[in-house]
């Protein structure tokens, strides 16, 4: 088994990290991003598999994961903020809130 980390940044261009465990609000998480190691203080609880911000993202700016835009910030997002459907809007489909098909 490979080394254990608490969060992962999937591409150097990303401005979000994904939690690999349930992370508590106020806790500090160290991730490798863009070839360097950064420590982020979380502003809220981040469940396993959910995302937090590595940088301030202005309203309307792209949220980047896998090195690609996964949507735009619908409000300004601060470092360490929880990033999900409440502050990101898809540019290719719905926000997903309808969630119908399966």
């Amino acid at each position, binding site marked *: *088994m*490979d*080394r*254990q*980390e608490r969060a*992962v*940044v*999937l*591409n*150097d261009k990303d401005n979000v990290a*994904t*939690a*690999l465990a349930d992370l508590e609000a106020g806790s500090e998480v160290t991730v*490798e991003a863009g070839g360097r190691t950064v420590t982020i203080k979380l502003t809220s609880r981040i*469940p*396993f*598999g*959910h*995302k937090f911000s590595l940088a301030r993202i202005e309203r309307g700016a792209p*949220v980047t*994961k*896998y*090195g*690609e*835009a*996964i*949507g735009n910030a619908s409000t300004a997002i601060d470092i360490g903020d929880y*990033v*999900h*459907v409440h502050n*990101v*809007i*898809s*540019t*290719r*489909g*719905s*926000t*997903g*809130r*309808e*969630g*119908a*098909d*399966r």
Partner: protein
Amino acid sequence: MSFLGYARADGSVGVRNYIGVISTVACANDVAFWIAQQIKGTAPFLHQAGCCQLMPDIEMATRTLSALGRNPNLAGVLLVSLGCEGTDVDRLEKEIAASGKPVRRVLIQKAGATVALNEGLLFAQELVSKASEIRVQEFDDSHLVIGVKCGGSDTTSGLASNPAVGAACDLVVDNGGTCIFGETTEFLGAEHILVRRAVNKEVADKLLKIVADMEKRARASGGDMRGGNPTAGNIAGGLTSIEEKSLGAIVKSGTRPIQDVYDYGVPVKGKGLFVVDSPGREPEFLSGLAAAGAQICLFSTGLGVPQGFPFMPVIKVTGNPLTFQRLPDHIDVLVGMTGGKGTGLRETGERLYREVLAVGSGKQTKAEILGYGNFPGLYTLGPII
């Protein structure tokens, strides 16, 4: 690096040496199944297509069965025909034989299933005997043709097993081999990103067209594939948008340029990364990969799925340690959540690549040992009539 395989007359290289017992229509399945049960060294291909379908689907069934018969893992083919099926059995026999493989055929409507069975048993036995004389040879890894797939996905899929399979896919391409992916459904919402990897505008246009056509077919059946995604379950798991969901799936194809887009049921020619227009459901998708000429499938899963395929080894890869623990009879490889960069992912990709070469050289996958995968399917676009 190299692997041990079987040279075929058409220049392709097999990693298994089966005689395919191919049913040409749903009604012939039983006889094909009986023969394959009895004769060691055979692999059945059973399905529900081949009759009472619209012409485009009948054509797709014929061309896919023909392509399956030419898969390099088969040393020869026994066609089990009913007689009045829609599939063009003469064409099947001709095309498979033209690839240099021995082909035999039995006909149920000639004198009944028991006679067809008896004839088929003898044909299959002869074909297996001949195939068993083919010796394995060493081939360099540019002869690899790998398919990739994800299914039974969970949160770990997009974070661990899909990036790991993608890293292995890049290695296949970098070493001169061929890698095939598909599941057109999963491109939805990220097709604008995928097209940037197309080698030219023609290929980019083909990618956009297969996505648009799929959405059109869904709408014609009353479904909205874009609006329902991500699903409530996806959102609970942390997926925010359809782009994120699709990117997490597409990452299993690695990062190399897309050379071309193929229709379902057509053998892929050439080296590098290719797309086959195909549905995501396992039975039909795995048949699509085998028809494209894949020797081995790397299958990424989160929750764990059992699927194999009659004559194409399927290597199951998970990033979920609980799934690996729960399903030791199905999952071949556990990978860690090393992320999409740095040495961790590279090492994981290399580990998967070595597993591909080992399975290529004869190492049995969990699904092969278990004998799981006897019920594949053929993709159909229209109704059964």
